[in-house]
């Protein structure tokens, strides 16, 4: 038991360190860390559907996109602050998730077919937004960028350090939320559904309802990341935001880090981004910085990890530290 306290202690120290980072880090490091925290956050959101409820979504970029466009449009066209726009983003993404979930679960679409269904929806959105003139279509939608003397947290305009703290807060909140969810009745029921849906039903669990809850929460959480995405990058192109490679990128973290435990996506995000940056630097150093080189090594590294550690890094690590894996 005290080992678990040790882990939480380590987490607290990590959090404190992360809070202190902007005081001595350059913009490059901040950017990398923002990417890590972003991936940890979306990985956590995706994990709710996959790791908890056992539904494989390969089109999660749709929620990022919907959230991003919703908040961005409300800000640019109606002057609504992103924290308010976030509510609309969450509502739209939740509705989308509910639609996908309803169609899939009512019609009994599961497993690989469900995954392909999610891809189809994301692609549909991508092409749809490509032709959606009011939000810029394929030419893109832009947020005004100005050189502000000070940070405007309310409107999410500011320097990298401000975005860093916002992302850190979001990632920490997501971790805490997932942790709490797992210990609630909903969390237990999700695990039951993931393990054996029919057996779960025999215990009185309304599996349709709980799967819907997972999909809606997952989508809503992801939409918040979309809002951040819009205000951090200040430009939205359907080709990039809804792209299937975005969906894939989102799930690499949890799969490598470990599905099902709140630690998984965090470890995965750190390892993947860290490895990616490391490779970038090594390749530049040896002069082989050709387009595609980094990704080849990245792909090989993924291959190796998924072959050697099929359950992900966290369960392996937890076993080493002799903790329970959840």
């Amino acid at each position, binding site marked *: 038991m005290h080992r678990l306290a040790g882990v939480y202690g380590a987490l607290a120290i990590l959090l404190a360190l992360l809070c202190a980072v902007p005081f001595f880090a350059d913009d490059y490091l901040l950017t990398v860390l923002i990417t890590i925290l972003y991936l940890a956050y979306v990985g956590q959101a995706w994990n709710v559907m996959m790791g908890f409820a056992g539904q494989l979504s390969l089109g999660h970029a749709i929620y990022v996109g919907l959230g991003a466009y919703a908040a961005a449009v409300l800000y640019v066209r109606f002057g609504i602050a992103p924290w308010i726009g976030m509510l609309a983003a969450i509502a739209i993404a939740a509705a989308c998730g509910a639609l996908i979930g309803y169609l899939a679960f009512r019609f009994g679409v599961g497993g690989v077919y469900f995954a392909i269904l999610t891809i189809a929806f994301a692609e549909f959105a991508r092409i749809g937004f490509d032709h959606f003139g009011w939000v810029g279509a394929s030419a893109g939608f832009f947020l005004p960028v100005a050189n502000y003397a000070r940070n405007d947290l309310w409107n999410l305009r500011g320097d990298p350090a401000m975005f860093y703290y916002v992302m850190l807060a979001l990632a920490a909140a997501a971790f805490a939320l997932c942790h709490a969810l797992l*210990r*609630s*009745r909903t969390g*237990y*029921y999700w*695990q*039951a559904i993931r*393990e*054996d849906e*029919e*057996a*779960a*039903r*025999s*215990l*009185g*669990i*309304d*599996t349709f309802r709980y799967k819907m809850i997972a999909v809606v929460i997952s989508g809503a959480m992801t939409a918040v990341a979309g809002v951040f995405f819009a205000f951090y990058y200040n430009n939205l192109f359907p080709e990039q935001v809804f792209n299937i490679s975005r969906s894939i990128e989102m799930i690499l973290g949890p799969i490598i880090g470990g599905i099902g435990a709140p630690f998984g996506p965090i470890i995965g995000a750190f390892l993947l981004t860290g490895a990616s940056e490391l490779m970038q630097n090594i390749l530049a150093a040896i002069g082989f910085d050709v387009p595609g080189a980094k990704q080849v090594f990245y792909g090989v590294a993924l291959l190796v990890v998924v072959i050697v550690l099929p359950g992900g890094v966290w369960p392996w690590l937890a076993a080493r530290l002799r903790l329970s894996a959840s």
Partner: protein
Amino acid sequence: MARSKAAIERLVGMDDLLEVQGVSKRFRGLLAVDDVTFRVPQGSIFAVIGPNGAGKTTLFNMIAGVIKPDCGRIALAGARVEGCRPDEICRRGIGRTFQLVRPFPALSVEDNVVIGAMLHRRDARAARGHAREVLERLDLIGKRSQIASTLTLPDRKRLELARALATDPKLLLLDEVMAGMRPGETDRMVSVLGELNRAGGLTILLIEHVMRAVVALAGRVLVLHHGAAIAEGPPEAVMREPAVVQSYLGAEALA
């Protein structure tokens, strides 16, 4: 204590807990269950036996909500339940186990039972408390932290039993729970079930092939053959009936 309670209930004329009336099910060309009717009194143990293909599993699945009957009625404590979904059936008070055991493999023994307990207890701590009580009663408390997939078959069967019991069922459906167990393990399961029935007043409906268990446990037996009921009554009487001997048991069983 509970025995006399059951006796009093019979005297007072308590309703049967489970009523199955005129239930039939056809699969394309095959009439799997043919107009079956029986009642299970509160606090009793009722067994359904018969050769393979007799329709026992189909009948079981209709009571458990997995399949809808084509016609007929199934009532639990007077309330109709035929056609309800499996999760609704459980919420009404029918628990079940599976012929091929299905514990939640990656979860611990305790967590398995906690999930069952959560049906009537939202709070995790209360659910865990109840789960521990059930595990104690089934002598699994020592293994509560073990991962379900590492258990032996008899232990997994007891785990599934514990998990179903944690939902506080009024009626427990057991699908060939003795299958694949050695005689010593069977006897152990029989004594556990007998205890649950005597001390806890739990009504049990079991589908079974292992006659040793049926004779030891059941107060009444229903024999199915080609989907229809061919005999019903106390086990010793039913097992002597010529139709039953011919279709299922064989003359050796009488020896």
